[in-house]
């Protein structure tokens, strides 16, 4: 066989190498060497990013169409890896804790394996590949969620996750079987020709597929696990869940909708339309009265998912670009907030919004960063969030979904309200025993700085979006 096609899989291969090294390091490293585990992990991952940053080869497919490659995928993969790197940095403090420091290796390995799964999922050219990637992304995830296994919340979250995940993937699988039955093949490029509208089997298959992937993106009504799991999981894992897996899933959803289900575009646009509306609204409504920061962010991330889908619904190249851009922007903002939350949690065990009252008095810098991040999530200029929101709106508007855009816009008011609640808590509310000044370790510092730069710079510097667009036409 032709080994050159492995070149398409550059990202995956190098990631596997990284994983292998870490694995071996975990096995053989001495106690002293283990101190530098995080350094090694971060450096390796950084190297991986740099190595894969530039999209080299032209679009193409390998292994008889099982694996697909487009430059856009490199972009999204790099974004995801980049996010993972930040998560690694923020996780360090937590991993150094007594009850987890002996399983750092596991953490890195598991995370990277989910990442690998996502890579495959993104690059898949066949539903088998897609399914494998999906599962590979979600099974280790459950173990990550239950990582603090002696803490009840973590365990409970893990259980909830694995049960619902299995349920959804089972249904997905069932749906795929229908698709297979209807089309006789599961290759992405073959299916469109075989799709005939009004075929109930295909329809059922499609709905099951939406449900399965919707579970990953946590679209209402497939979102219910989200809040609990986000709350229960260790904070770094939560942040990973909220940005990386969501981002990859959305991207995949768009590619598959565009590639595979193109013939039944009207159906899926209607479905996505409805899903967007309820996702944004329900997410906002629930977020309104959350007191636990992580749970709060869970719901906010649900409504954000709705906004991301605005980029999907058009099924256009500009939609793709705005979507990827949105994921990137959303990632930096969310990771910034989670970084702050996690360090505060590590230092003080406090995650309730009431504990954040008067945070500004004691930790101005962290508060300032959080404020900017929240503004970015709320879509307020000059922070990146404004641009990303505007662009997805533009994409949807261009495809003629005016009413939808207006609904989404009105929802931004609610979201602004609850983001401001946090700001209010930190700046305005009085607190008798506020969180004492917190000293941040250098990892957190670096990661937060990167996030800050991202939040401010991504919007102002149009180059980022322009690059993404340039590749989005390669779809």
């Amino acid at each position, binding site marked *: 066989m032709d080994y050159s096609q492995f070149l398409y899989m550059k990202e995956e291969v190098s990631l596997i190498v990284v994983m292998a090294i870490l694995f071996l390091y975990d096995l053989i490293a001495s106690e002293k060497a283990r101190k530098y585990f995080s350094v090694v992990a971060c450096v390796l991952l950084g190297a991986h990013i740099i190595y894969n940053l530039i999209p080299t080869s032209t679009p193409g497919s390998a292994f008889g169409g099982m694996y697909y490659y487009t430059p856009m995928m490199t972009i999204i993969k790099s974004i995801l890896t980049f996010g993972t790197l930040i998560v690694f940095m923020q996780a360090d403090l937590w991993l150094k804790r007594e009850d987890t420091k002996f399983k750092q290796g596991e953490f890195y390995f598991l995370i990277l394996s989910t990442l690998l799964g996502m890579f495959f999922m993104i690059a898949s050219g066949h539903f088998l590949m897609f399914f494998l990637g999906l599962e590979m992304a979600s*099974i280790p995830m*459950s173990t990550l969620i239950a990582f603090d296994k*002696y803490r009840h*919340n973590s*365990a409970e979250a*893990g259980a909830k996750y694995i049960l619902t995940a299995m349920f959804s993937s089972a249904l997905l*699988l*069932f749906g795929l079987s229908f698709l297979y039955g209807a089309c006789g093949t*599961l290759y992405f490029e073959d299916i469109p020709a075989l799709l005939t509208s009004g075929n109930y089997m295909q329809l059922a298959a499609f709905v099951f597929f939406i449900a399965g992937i919707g579970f990953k993106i946590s679209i209402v009504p497939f979102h219910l696990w989200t*809040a609990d799991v986000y709350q229960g999981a260790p904070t770094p894992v939560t942040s990973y869940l909220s940005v990386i897996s969501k981002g990859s899933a959305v991207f995949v959803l768009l590619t598959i909708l565009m590639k595979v289900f193109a013939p039944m575009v009207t159906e899926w646009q209607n479905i996505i339309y409805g899903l967007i509306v309820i996702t944004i609204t329900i997410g906002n409504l629930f977020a309104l009265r959350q007191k636990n920061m992580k749970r709060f962010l869970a719901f906010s991330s649900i409504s954000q998912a709705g906004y991301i889908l605005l980029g999907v619904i058009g099924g256009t190249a500009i939609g793709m670009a705005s979507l990827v851009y949105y994921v990137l922007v959303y990632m930096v903002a969310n990771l910034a907030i989670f970084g702050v939350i996690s360090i505060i949690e590590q230092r003080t065990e406090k995650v309730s919004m009431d504990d954040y009252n008067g945070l500004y008095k004691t930790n101005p810098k962290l508060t300032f960063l959080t404020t900017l991040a929240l503004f970015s999530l709320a879509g307020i200029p000059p922070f990146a969030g404004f641009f990303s929101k505007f662009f997805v709106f533009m994409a949807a508007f261009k495809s003629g979904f005016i009413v939808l855009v207006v609904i989404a816009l009105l929802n931004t008011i609610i979201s602004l309200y609850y983001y401001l609640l946090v700001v209010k808590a930190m700046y305005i509310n009085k607190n008798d025993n506020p969180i004492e000044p917190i000293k941040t370790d250098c990892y957190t510092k670096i990661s937060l700085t990167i996030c800050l730069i991202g939040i401010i710079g991504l919007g102002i510097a149009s180059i980022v979006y322009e690059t993404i667009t340039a590749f989005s036409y390669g779809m």
Partner: protein
Amino acid sequence: MGVELYLVISTIMLCAGIYGFLIRKNTLAMLISVELILNAADINFAVFNKFLFPNQLEGHFFTLFAIGIVAAETAIAIAIIINIYRNVQSLDVDKIDKMKH
């Protein structure tokens, strides 16, 4: 003996699985129900492959992979359930609703 019969069976398995998943309070039982659904899907693959598209193996392979994955998944699930048991001394699914609203 046509494809419909198999489909009926797989559908019954699906419904049974879903029913079990929704009704049984024992987490392990729920796990088993999920297994039922998955197997229903596997059966579908196999059947479609055999009856509708006899001259290819895509479905069979898919089934194999699926079985493998499900096995792994189940293993993890059981591990986690044991972990839960350690925490709450019970397998009752309603016990694990500390986080809500």
